[in-house]
C-alpha cells in the first residue's frame, strides 16, 4: 500500500546585518574564535539585550513579500534549554505573538505554480558553535566559540502542506532566491545561512488525520533535504508496513552516507518554559514603518517573471531563470529596454551566463565590462542582420576583455563583415554553379536542399555572412534561374 507523506518545514534564515540581533558585535562570519563577542552575546551577568532595528526591518520585508500579516505589537520570549553554545541557556525568540503570521510562498513546480502556506515568520538570535569532543591530554573536551551567538535569524514555519520531497526542495530554492532578492540574507545553505528542519509523517491516502511525526534535522543542502526526506519517508513506510508504529523522534540525516540516526525520543522531550522576555518591552512596528517597508520593497521575483512573460513574450521558463537573481533580471531588463526582448533573453541566458560560469564572475563583474547598453548595441547589429550570429558571439567575447564599440573591435581584429548584397552575390552565384544537382532538386520542388546551399555560401564567406541574408539571396537567385530555365 502506498502511503502519503505529510511534511512541514521550519527554516532559519541568517540575516546579513552588520551587527548582531541584540548587541553591537559584528555579525560577520569567519573571525577568530571568540573575537566577535561582548558582555551581551557572551551572556555575562548583568548584560541586557537591545533589539537591532535592521533585523526587525528584514523580518517585516520578508513578511510583506510573503503576504503575511505584520503584527503591530509583537513580543520576544525566552526559550529555555541548557546547551554549551547557548550563552544564557535560553534563547531570545518569539512565541505566541510573532512579528509575521500567515502568508504563502509561490513556488513553481514544473509547469504549475503553487503557494505553500506559512504559519509564521519571527526574529530570534542564533546560538554559538560547539565542536565534537576531542582528545585533550588524558581526557575528552569540547570546544565552544560564541562568535555566532546572537547573530540575527528569521525563523519561518510552514503549514504541513508538502507531500513530496521535491516540493520541499523547490520551496527552499524559491525561498533562497527570495531572501537574496530582498537583500536580507546570502541564503547559502552550505554556510548555514539558510537552515532547514522538517517534520514528517505518513498516512494512508484519504485519511484526514496526521500520523505521528518525526523531526528531521541537519539538512544542510537542498539536495540533502530531498534525500533525507526520501530516506525518512521510506523508513516510516517500512516500519508501518512491517506492522510497527512510528515513535515521535528527532533524526539526524547524514548526507555523505545517506543514513538516518535517531537522536531523541519523546520521553526526553524538552519543556522550553517560554515566557515573555522582561528585558525587551513590546516591539511596536507601526503603520508608517510597514508602509515605508512596503514602498521600499522591490518588485518580487514571481511578479517580475510574470511581467517578463507578458511584456517581452518570454517563455515561463526563461522568465523564471532571468528572475533567479535580482541583478540578472535588472541587467536583462536594461538590455531588453534597448533592443528586442526575446533576443536579449537568449543572449543573457546563454552568452552572459556562460561567461559568469566560465570565469566564476558575479553579474556585476560582467556588467562592469559589458554594460547593458553595450550588449544592446551588439544585439541591434544582429537584429539588423549586420552581423552573423557566430561573429556576434565572437564580438561579445572580445567585449568582455577589450574596450571599444563593435566597429572598433571588428577593425582591431581585422574582420570585415560580408553583409552587403554586393559582397554576397558573387558567392551565391558560385555556389549555385558548383552544385547543379541540389539546384535541380530545389527547382524540382525539394526545397530542403536550400539549407545545403546556404551552408556552401557560408563556407565561402568564411563565416562572415549572415545566414538569413544568404538564404534570401539564394531564394531570389533560384527564382530567377527557374524563370530563366
Amino acid at each position, binding site marked *: 500500500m502506498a502511503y502519503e507523506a505529510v511534511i512541514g518545514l521550519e527554516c532559519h534564515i541568517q540575516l546579513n546585518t552588520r*551587527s548582531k540581533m541584540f548587541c553591537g558585535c559584528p555579525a560577520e562570519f569567519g573571525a577568530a574564535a*571568540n573575537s566577535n563577542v561582548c558582555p551581551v552575546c557572551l551572556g555575562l551577568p548583568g548584560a541586557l539585550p537591545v533589539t537591532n532595528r535592521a533585523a526587525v526591518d528584514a523580518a517585516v520585508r520578508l513578511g510583506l513579500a510573503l503576504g503575511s500579516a505584520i503584527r503591530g505589537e509583537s513580543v520576544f520570549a525566552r526559550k529555555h534549554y*541548557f546547551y554549551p553554545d547557548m550563552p544564557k541557556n535560553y534563547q531570545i525568540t518569539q512565541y505566541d505573538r510573532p512579528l509575521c503570521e500567515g502568508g504563502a510562498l509561490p513556488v513553481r513546480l514544473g509547469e504549475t505554480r503553487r503557494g505553500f502556506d506559512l504559519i509564521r515568520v519571527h526574529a530570534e538570535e542564533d546560538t554559538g558553535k560547539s565542536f565534537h569532543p576531542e582528545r585533550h591530554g588524558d581526557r575528552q573536551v569540547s*570546544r565552544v566559540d560564541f562568535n555566532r551567538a546572537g547573530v540575527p535569524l528569521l525563523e519561518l514555519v510552514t503549514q504541513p502542506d508538502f507531500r513530496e520531497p521535491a516540493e520541499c526542495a523547490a520551496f527552499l530554492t524559491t525561498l533562497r532566491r527570495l531572501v537574496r532578492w530582498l537583500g536580507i540574507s546570502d541564503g547559502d545553505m552550505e554556510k548555514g545561512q539558510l537552515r532547514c528542519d522538517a517534520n514528517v509523517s505518513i498516512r494512508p491516502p484519504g485519511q484526514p488525520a496526521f500520523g505521528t511525526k518525526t523531526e528531521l534535522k541537519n539538512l544542510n543542502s537542498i539536495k540533502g533535504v530531498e534525500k533525507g526526506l526520501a530516506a525518512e519517508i521510506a523508513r516510516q513506510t517500512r516500519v508501518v508496513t512491517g506492522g510497527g508504529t512510528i515513535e515521535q523522534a528527532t533524526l539526524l540525516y547524514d548526507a555523505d552516507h545517506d543514513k538516518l540516526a535517531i537522536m531523541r525520543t519523546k520521553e526526553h522531550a524538552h519543556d522550553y518554559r517560554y515566557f515573555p522576555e522582561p528585558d525587551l518591552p513590546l516591539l511596536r512596528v507601526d503603520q508608517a514603518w510597514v508602509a515605508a517597508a512596503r514602498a521600499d520593497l522591490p518588485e518580487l521575483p514571481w511578479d517580475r517573471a510574470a511581467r517578463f512573460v507578458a511584456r517581452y513574450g518570454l517563455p515561463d521558463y526563461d522568465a523564471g531563470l532571468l528572475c533567479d537573481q535580482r541583478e540578472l533580471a535588472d541587467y536583462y531588463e536594461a538590455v531588453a529596454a534597448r533592443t528586442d526582448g526575446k533576443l536579449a533573453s537568449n543572449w543573457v541566458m546563454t552568452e552572459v551566463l556562460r561567461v559568469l560560469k566560465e570565469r566564476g564572475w558575479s553579474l556585476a563583474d560582467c556588467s562592469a565590462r559589458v554594460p547593458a547598453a553595450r550588449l544592446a548595441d551588439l544585439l541591434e547589429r544582429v537584429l539588423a542582420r549586420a552581423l552573423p550570429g557566430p561573429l556576434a558571439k565572437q564580438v561579445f567575447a572580445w567585449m568582455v576583455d577589450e574596450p571599444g564599440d563593435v566597429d572598433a573591435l571588428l577593425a582591431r581584429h581585422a574582420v570585415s563583415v560580408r553583409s552587403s548584397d554586393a559582397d554576397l552575390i558573387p558567392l551565391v552565384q558560385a555556389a549555385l554553379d558548383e552544385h547543379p544537382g541540389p539546384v535541380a532538386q530545389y527547382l524540382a520542388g525539394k526545397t530542403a536542399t536550400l539549407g545545403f546551399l546556404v551552408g556552401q555560401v557560408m563556407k565561402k564567406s568564411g563565416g562572415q555572412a549572415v545566414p538569413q541574408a544568404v538564404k534570401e539571396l539564394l531564394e531570389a537567385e533560384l527564382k530567377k534561374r527557374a524563370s530563366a530555365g
Partner: protein
Amino acid sequence: MSIQRDDVQKIAELARLEIPAERVERVARELSAVLDYAASLGQLDLTGCEPTAFAPVLAPLRADALDGRRLTPEQALAQAPEGEGGFFLVPPIVENLNP
C-alpha cells in the same frame, strides 16, 4: 501539598539541580507551602486584567551599528574556568544535538 516528590525531581532536572534524596521531601514541603499561599490569588477578581509581563513602555530599537563593548578573545576567556586557543573548553558534549 501542591508539589509531590516526583515533581521536585522533574523540575530539578529541568533546572539542572540535584536534590539529595534525603532532602526531596523537605523541598517538596517548602515549595508547597509557598504555592499553597499563592493559591490565595484565586480569591482576587482578575476580570479584565491582562497579564503584565514587562514594563509598560515600548522597546527602543538599536541602529544596526557596531559599538565599543566588544571584548578581545583574551578578555572573553579571562574568567573562564578552562579555555585554550581562543576557545572555551567544556567536558564532552554527549547529547550531541542542539534543540
